[in-house]
């Protein structure tokens, strides 16, 4: 698979480490009263869809940026690559 890095252009997926579902950006608040339940869900449960999947790839052997890659798990086709930083900021993380 070739991942079209927003800053570096097309890179071999072997340079990256796969870090799972992009919903892991939405880390629950540990101070919530239901934190035990929300963290169980966050740490262990996955949608695991057959089809389009937004996922985190870490450019470990490259510029060490984190990407959100939208990829089809049935065909391995990649439709969109974003910097995870931008996605997280757009969601109000890391003010």
């Amino acid at each position: 698979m070739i991942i079209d890095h927003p800053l570096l252009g097309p890179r071999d997926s072997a340079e990256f480490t796969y870090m799972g579902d992009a919903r892991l950006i939405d880390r629950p608040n540990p101070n919530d009263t239901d934190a035990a339940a929300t963290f169980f869900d966050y740490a262990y449960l996955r949608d695991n869809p057959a089809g389009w999947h937004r996922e985190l790839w870490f450019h470990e052997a490259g510029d060490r940026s984190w990407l959100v890659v939208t990829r089809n798990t049935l065909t391995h086709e990649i439709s969109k690559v974003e910097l995870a930083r931008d996605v997280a900021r757009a969601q109000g993380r890391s003010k």
Partner: protein
Amino acid sequence: MRYSGFRVIKEALSGHKGWTPAWRDPEPAEHYDIVIIGGGGHGLATAHYLAKEFGQSRIAVIEKGWIGGGNVGRNTTIVRSNYLLDGNEPFYEMSLKLWEGLEQDLNYNAMVSQRGILNLIHSDGQRDAFTRRGNAMILNGADADMLSTADIKKRYPFLNTDDARFPIKGGLAQHRGGTVRHDAVAWGYARSADSRGVDIIQNCEVTGFRIENGVCKGVETSRGFIGAGKVGCAVAGNSSRLMSKANMRLPIESHVLQAFVSEGLKPVLPGVITFGAGHFYCSQSDKGGLVFGGDIDGYNSYAQRGNLPVVEDVCEGAMAIFPMLGRARLLRMWGGIMDMSMDGSPIIDKTHIDGLFFNGGWCYGGFKATPASGMSFAHLLAKGEPHPNATAYRFDRFEKGLMIDEKGMGNQPNLH
């Protein structure tokens, strides 16, 4: 029809005209006591043990394609019980014992071959870890044998014990391990279950569950509604897809695992070997092909095919211990879809929905577990409580911190 050597000779002399189909092709009935979703090794084994060991009747196995067309047809056929942890080892040892009696139990030649498995040791730390593992195996009634380099050299003279990049310093052997003809496992269980009245319904895809007031009443399928007292799901690889129809989210990611087979060669590899300094395992099939594999690709996939980086990694492992393999041509390669669970261990449990039971999360250890998985799932379905050897495979172990993490990797499915 009972199979025997005598029968083969008789049929050979009469032009093979007396053979009958090994299982029926029935129309689905309106209602069954137990419906098992998934006509793979685990589902068919469950049906066999339900009928034979637990006296259940009115059972159906429903399969979206043809039986044995999923992961039971896409593995490297290795059976072993060399696990470390208490939650696992008694279960896998039960499985190995069932493999030993499988062909007599099923009256079917599954080519169970206890040719032995050898895990190579390349460092002092690895020797300590494998000694501990061997002791855990012996404590649970399995066999384990620490081999010296001289022992290994006797059995595998081609291995480099002198000046390899990762020198071989010994090995943990399980002589009762080996290989089994994978397709024959599905066919043998199917034939036996069918002969005991189980309906095996192929080309019947489940499209939904009928759940009323928290009770599962049956399954909607491409061939209409099938009512059921109990529904058991055994569709590892596609567990998340199926269970999402019951609005369940699982502690599972689906990943692709590739495997390879070389052209047929003369006998060169008497048993199963695993490389300890990388991830590579290899055996030689009775046809002569070297069957080998390595790591999963490491990203979510339902595609049943992988990518080149892992092919390269597997071949590097191969060349490190069998440089001669570089001269063999690759005949076929394929990918199977694994339910990679959050701790690397399976789940055999009830769900929060009455009458709906789950068996999955087999990671890439599902083939060797087939008989024990079938036995344990049948026990759960028939008696409503887990088999004594499968009590740890609960859904709530993640919530309660009771993980069975053989590799100690935590909740990273692609590292198990």
